[in-house]
């Protein structure tokens, strides 16, 4: 398919913004600036970017513990994201969630999720709600190869299939579930084969090719919007970084990681854009610098933001806080 220069450069810019957010998060965490756990999306940017480029603002996504990329691709405010990583009052969750629980319901982001597979039933429920409302919105559920071995995955695909819910299950197979290699924890080569068991389309694609992700998702989005029901897209990628920042990575050798760096999605897309004369050196420099500037500003915003008031720990559990003894 032919795409406009603007469209392609937008995809590229989103991927670059995600990459820079993650590089900064990694740096800040290693410097001891950020508490908690950080799971980086580095090397997987093409999936969130390509898939979400098909969505409307009023469509929904569910995300994972490795969720920064999904948030950014859906249009999240990176200042509020960074502030949440810092546990600040101005963060998306007012410091109550942190990296693993960032959400913006107004953007249709129904939450990152600290439970592997935890977002899948929620995505299915969003699809069910949409069907009950008779709206044409859709849901994209991002999850990993680890989640594909949970009961929630199997229950969710079956449930979505029987009610023909508008849910696209986007499996990010990054070859690792925490420290466990997918090859050792999953008996089949392509996890999308499991779609057959639920009577829905299943397809495996290169998750490092943003255009392939875009085009495949587009087809499934069209299907879902026209009441055709759910589908499973397995995007094959590689988790270049550890499970979390600071992971000693005893379970794999460095050489394997170096080999996969050669096929990382941003370089791969750059090569194509340069070959097609869509991206030149100046434009590339501008896009990277612009992303880095935004990230730096986000860090300043986060650092300058106040920490939450201690007493605020007792708010937000129920809508009307007063009158209930926690």
């Amino acid at each position: 398919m032919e795409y406009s220069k603007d469209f392609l450069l937008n995809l590229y810019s989103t991927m670059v913004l995600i990459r820079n957010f993650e590089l900064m998060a990694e740096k800040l965490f290693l410097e001891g600036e950020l508490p908690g756990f950080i799971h980086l999306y580095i090397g997987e940017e093409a999936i969130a970017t390509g898939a979400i480029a098909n969505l409307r603002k009023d469509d929904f996504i569910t995300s994972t513990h490795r969720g920064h990329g999904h948030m950014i691709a859906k249009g999240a405010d990176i200042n509020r994201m960074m502030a949440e990583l810092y546990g600040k009052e101005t963060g998306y969750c007012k410091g109550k969630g942190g990296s693993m629980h960032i959400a913006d319901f107004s953007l249709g982001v129904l939450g990152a999720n600290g439970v592997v597979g935890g977002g899948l039933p929620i995505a299915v429920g969003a699809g069910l709600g949409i069907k009950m409302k008779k709206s044409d919105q859709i849901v994209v559920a991002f999850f990993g190869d680890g989640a594909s071995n949970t009961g929630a995955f199997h229950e969710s695909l079956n449930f979505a299939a029987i009610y023909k819910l508008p849910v696209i299950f986007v499996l990010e197979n990054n070859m690792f579930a925490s420290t466990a290699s997918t090859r050792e924890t999953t008996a089949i080569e392509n996890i999308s084969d499991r779609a057959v068991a639920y009577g829905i389309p299943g397809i495996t694609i290169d998750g490092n090719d943003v255009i392939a992700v875009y085009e495949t998702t587009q087809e499934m989005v069209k299907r879902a919007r026209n009441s055709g029901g759910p589908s499973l897209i397995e995007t094959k990628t590689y988790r270049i970084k550890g499970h979390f920042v600071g992971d000693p990575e005893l379970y794999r050798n460095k050489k394997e990681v170096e080999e996969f760096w050669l096929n990382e999605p941003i370089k791969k897309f750059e090569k194509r854009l340069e070959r097609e004369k869509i991206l030149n050196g100046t434009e590339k420099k501008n896009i990277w610098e612009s992303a880095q500037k935004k990230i730096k500003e986000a860090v300043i915003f986060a650092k300058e933001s106040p920490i939450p008031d201690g007493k605020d720990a007792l708010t937000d559990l129920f809508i009307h806080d007063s009158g209930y003894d926690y």
Partner: protein
Amino acid sequence: MREITFAEALGEAILEEMEKDPAIFTYGEDIAKQGGIFGAYKSLLGKFPDRIFDTPISEEVIYGSALGAALVGMKPIVEFHFADFLFTGIQSITLQIEKIRYMTGGQGKLHLLLRGPDGISNSAAAQHSECIETIFMHVPGIKVIIPSTPYDVKGLIKKALQEDDPVICFEHKMLYRIKGPVPEEDYTIPFGIAEVKREGNDVTVVTISRMVHESLKAAEELKNDGISAEIIDLRTLVPWDKKTVIESVKKTNHLVVAHETWKRAGWGAEITSVVQEEAFDYLDAPIIRVGAKNVPMPFAANLQDFVTPNYKDVIEAVKQILR
């Protein structure tokens, strides 16, 4: 006033709210065609075929999907079939439903109701008899209601369906067929307001659900021995009506807490602890708890009877405390 069963009152509450609010829909196992294992949905049979449906036996996605549907603005009511099977989908409740609002900094309204049967019945044994309300009182993030009468189930369910927070309702299997007065006109019962079912001066018995009826029976017998017992039905555990309980204890100076769930670390321990923290000086004797013995529910009728508390255990506890 007309008398209807607990199940009929429940059905009326759901039906009336569904008629008012098109966002409400309800699903679960064995409800749409069969009306529920214990007939809770019998009065809904044939009504709203698009908004009442049966699901596969997939509890994790049943409970989790209620959350997703609530997040996109719908108001799901999910039946949990047996309280025991809350455990088969527990992550969707304790890790998702109960936490999402808090961990996202208070985003969104979660208008969802989980409801279904709990407690003993006719030899249902270990995996179909549990009372596990304490767990949901313990993990913060869901309101817990446990009605004991047709009047209360209607009023509390209607209130739950107007709440913007998640609610879980436990309905004792042996209560579905009991009859009681329920007015025709619309009403709701606020959460956190206990009902003094019977006034008394010598001892306070705090209880819920089936044990309300056992405690009332106990009070009637105790009267013959010249003992005046005050019976308080908490009706909701999150929030629970501390004020009414403490006021009563200040009057009677004696407290028994009676529940069907296990005595060990059952919610009675929480009530006991709060009362001794806040009204210690008013107590004339140690607080006594009545609860199930700390084993899974056995099958044989005599074994089930041995494990499960009833009115005789309440009488014994009251006599012990007043000794």
